[in-house]
Each structure stands twice: as structure tokens, then as C-alpha cells.
């Protein structure tokens, strides 16, 4: 049984593409057959985050218009045999695709892949409607900021009215030091407001910038704390019961011990 998961947020710049790349790579690490679909037509970026920008020949719009077969447009990942990318078109716009065409495309991909991860564009217009059309599940990304949480709330409402029940929340770029001194909303504050289930918390981590520079998702970096968070999210998607990271753990003696042992328990 394959699963189509859309990664969405409403607001731009909160980490949809990074999350798509990391969750997809994380699932491939577990041996799953995964395809990442970039639906941000006109502003594609999943290709550069994955480090596959030089290998693009055909794109999503080419497939939908029948200019090529799906297999011709799929780009195999540099490192993982079972991971593929279907890039967005860069010189077209979001109206080149309809929700019906996206449903047909995802159904076609279901025949080949265990997981189809869809990177949704920012906004709530056509691109969003296309991205969610074929999805079974939705993950909503937010950061602990008023604007991002507000947009996440709007997206949750729109997902529900489009029959995507029970979206799961990822809180990205959490700064435990700021939460501790009361200058950043905590996970509990955000859950309290959005009233949906949490599937992961990703701490702010400079390694994300470094890994994006290199085009190698942080999930493969054992020393990255954000990478560890993405590995945990991946396991939760696979149905394992993994406790949410305790980000305050860095201070006490246990936190130091954890750091010493290479963040294994976080």
C-alpha cells in the first residue's frame, strides 16, 4: 500500500522543501521506494536542496502534457537507489496543471512507489489545490512565529474542508534557549492554539544551511540535531512510537551526557 503525503504550510520560507527532502531521504534510508514531487511550478527548489539540479531533462508539466513518459522525467538520487525526484517546471506557471491531472499522476506513481511526498508551494491558490488533490495525508509545517502559526491555522482549515482529515504538525526552527526565557512560543503553546496532533519538532540548526549548501539532506548527518529530528519524524511516519525530543535537555547533566554520546537520545 502506497501513501501520498503532502508537505504544506501556507506561509513561505518555513521549511517545506527542506522537510520534503529530509523526510523523503529518511524514508529511503529505511529502504522504502520514494518519489519526491515538486509542485512549486515556476519557483522550483527541491532539485537544488537534493543536489540534483544538473540532471533535469523533463519535468512535471512535460509528464502531464504527455511530452514524455513518467519514467523519463524521474531523476534518481545521487546516493539512494530507491529515491527519485519529479522536478517542477521552472518556465511555466501553476495554472499549467489541474487538480484532476495531479490525482491521475499520483495514482500512476502509486503503482511504483511506497511513498509519494509532495512539496506544496506557499499560498492557498491553484498551486496549493494541485498539491493536495491526490494526497492521503498532510503534514503542516510551522515555525514558532505569529505569522507562520496564523497561516498554518488557515491551511488546517482548508485541508479539513478538502477532506484531508487529521493533518499532522511539524514545528520547525525551535530555539530552546528562547523558549526557556519566554521569548518564543513553546510547542505546547502552538498545539494549544492549532489543536492538531504533533508529528515532530525540529530545532534550529546551522547544519541545515550547510547541508543545503552542499545539496545533501541533513537527515543523513549523524551529528546534526535537526537531522536526528527528521530521522525521528521518518520513523513516526513508518508507524513507530518515538518520543518527541526534549529540547530543554541541553542544560542539565543528562543533556551533557547525551551530547557526549552523540545526541543519540534526543
Amino acid at each position, binding site marked *: 500500500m502506497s501513501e501520498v503525503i503532502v508537505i504544506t504550510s501556507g506561509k513561505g520560507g518555513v521549511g517545506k522543501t527542506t522537510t520534503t527532502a529530509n523526510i523523503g531521504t529518511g524514508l529511503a534510508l529505511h529502504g522504502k521506494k520514494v518519489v519526491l514531487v515538486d509542485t512549486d511550478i515556476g519557483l522550483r527548489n527541491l532539485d537544488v536542496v537534493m543536489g540534483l539540479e544538473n540532471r533535469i531533462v523533463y519535468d512535471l508539466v512535460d509528464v502531464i502534457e504527455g511530452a514524455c513518459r513518467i519514467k523519463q522525467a524521474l531523476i534518481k538520487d545521487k546516493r539512494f537507489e530507491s529515491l527519485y525526484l519529479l522536478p517542477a517546471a521552472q518556465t511555466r506557471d501553476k495554472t499549467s496543471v489541474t487538480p484532476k491531472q495531479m490525482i491521475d499522476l499520483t495514482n500512476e506513481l502509486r503503482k511504483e512507489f511506497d511513498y509519494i511526498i509532495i512539496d506544496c508551494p506557499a499560498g492557498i491558490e491553484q498551486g496549493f489545490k494541485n498539491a493536495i488533490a491526490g494526497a492521503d495525508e498532510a503534514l503542516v509545517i510551522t515555525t514558532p512565529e505569529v505569522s507562520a*502559526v*496564523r497561516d498554518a491555522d*488557515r491551511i*488546517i*482549515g482548508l485541508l479539513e474542508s478538502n477532506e484531508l482529515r*487529521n493533518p499532522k504538525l511539524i514545528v520547525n526552527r525551535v530555539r530552546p534557549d528562547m523558549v526557556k526565557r*519566554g521569548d*518564543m512560543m513553546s510547542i505546547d503553546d502552538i498545539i494549544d492554539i492549532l*489543536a*492538531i496532533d504533533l508529528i515532530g519538532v525540529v530545532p534550529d540548526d546551522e547544519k541545515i544551511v550547510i547541508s543545503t549548501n552542499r545539496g545533501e539532506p541533513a537527515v543523513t548527518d549523524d551529528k546534526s540535531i535537526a537531522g536526528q529530528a527528521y530521522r525521528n519524524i521518518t520513523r513516526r511516519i513508518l508507524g513507530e512510537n518515538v518520543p518527541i525530543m526534549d529540547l530543554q535537555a541541553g542544560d542539565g547533566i543528562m543533556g551533557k551526557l547525551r551530547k557526549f554520546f552523540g545526541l543519540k537520545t534526543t
Partner: protein
Amino acid sequence: MLLDLSRLFGKSKNSKDVAKERLKLVLIHDRANVSPEFLEMVKGEIIKVIQNYMDVDESGLDIQLTRTKSDDGEGVVPALVANIPIKSVKKSGK
């Protein structure tokens, strides 16, 4: 300690509390396309009815539109949550 003292005297609020308050207010608007005036009207009517039976603390009244898990646990539904502090129950209401 210093922080606690300043909070005790009500001088400053954590910025995350400010953020949370502002978010809650803006989301009332966003969620139901309901204006604050509309909520005020609902609030007024509710108080009127309840006052027939009990004395309530109007200043402590809190009414908001929020979301809650539906009974079957399958989804989220909008909810009108009212927190109404009661001063005393009128005898005639019994």
C-alpha cells in the same frame, strides 16, 4: 528571580505571551469570518439569558471561537467556548 519580581508587579509580559494573545485574537477573525462585534452580540445575549438564573461576573467573562477534537476523535470541529464565572445562583432559578 528578577524576571519573576517584575512580572509580580505587572511591569512586563513575556514576548511569547504577547504573541499568543495576539494570535488568539487574530484567529477568532480568521477562523469563522466572525467579527469581534458579532462575538460581542453573542456574549450580550448569553449573559442576558444566564442572568435570569444566576449572578455572573461580567468582567471575568471569556467567550471565544476555537477548535476542538470531534467526539469520534476523527477530525477537528469549531467550538464556541464560554468561560463564565458565577457569583451566585438565584433562588428563583431552582
